[in-house]
């Protein structure tokens, strides 16, 4: 039974945590650089995404797991993005007069 469950090596776990901590320091450090808008957001979110994928893949075992679980996880992000972008389609374009289309 649990023979076919993946037991993650201790080293992998520790390295992963180390990488996460380094990225945390990095994300704080880049704010000292004062990257101009909007790239600072891009960098901050980019780093957060890498961190989240590390947690999901290693700690949450998705890398070794049934791929369907990954699909389930990613689908939530897809629908979240749908929510964000379509709403922005309204909120960012309220003052744009209709004539331009």
């Amino acid at each position, binding site marked *: 039974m649990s023979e076919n469950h993946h037991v993650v090596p201790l080293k992998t776990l520790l390295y992963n945590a180390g990488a996460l901590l380094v990225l945390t320091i990095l994300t704080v450090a880049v704010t000292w650089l004062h990257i101009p808008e909007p790239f600072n957001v891009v960098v901050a979110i980019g780093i957060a995404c890498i961190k989240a994928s590390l947690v999901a893949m290693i700690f949450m075992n998705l890398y070794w797991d049934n791929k369907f679980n990954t699909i389930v996880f990613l689908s939530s992000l897809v629908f979240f993005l749908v929510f964000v972008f379509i709403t922005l389609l309204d909120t960012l374009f309220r003052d744009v*007069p*209709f*004539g331009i*289309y």
Partner: protein
Amino acid sequence: METFSEIFLPQRGSTGAADVDTLFHFIHITGFILLAGITIAIIYFCIKYRRKSDDEVTPIITHNANLEITWSVIPLILILIVFSWGFRAYLTLYTPPSDAFEINVTARSWSWEFTYPEGGSSLGELYVPANRPVKLIMRSEDVIHSFAVPDYRVKMDVIPNRYTTLWFEANEPGTSQVFCTEYCGTGHSAMLAEVIALDEEEWEEWLETGLEVDEDMPLAELGEQTYTGASCNACHSVDGTPSVGPTFQGLYGTEREFEDGTTATADENYLRESILDPQARITAGYPPVMPTLAGSLSEREIEGLIEYIKELE
């Protein structure tokens, strides 16, 4: 065609209405044909292929790709037509011409106030020139309302924190009904108004004199007008039926009892106070919801209202 149209739709009061109507009829007719086709097929099959014995065997027909494509593509074409048509008309509906005559609209629970560039304002009656584009710049003082004129096929929500706009061009002089079509509470269905489109002469004349209150009109008649114009009728009846607020019938001269236990006689002063500062004394058994009308009614209108209430025995 015109009479056929009038079964479904109100009269066409604006230049934009015809395009909307044609699309409306197009969808109805196409839809009806589709529906008829489906219904006839169902009925025909049900009769033709009725079960005759319990051990009937049916053929194995699993699918047919050509059919699936046909009944995906035909609707696709139809919706593309409908979409672009609706889109184009919407574009005109919400792009006011630059020379439009501008009027400000203020919505509050539950009345409409119209302010004209010349400075005057009217309650519950919007005067516009016919055959000339009019642009409304609208704002709400409390919750969301919606300004709708079915005759003109226009509608737009009126929201508290920013201006929304709407434009139309009445194609002939006449009166059309205005509804509030966004639910706004007790008086929602009484939040009515009228648009009165005037021909050029009348419009010029109205611009000159209309904003001033007609000095000759008897006070009670003015009061009656204000009663609906300022939407007192949303909460007060004149025939004794209970509503949000007490009825006006027989109100004058009676002994009023208040939430704090005190009493007073409903005389002129009391009526004036009730209109201008409704929260000062709350009549027992009623919620403290009446909006103040100080500022939006002229002195003569207030007098008119009081006179009108006095006359309602």
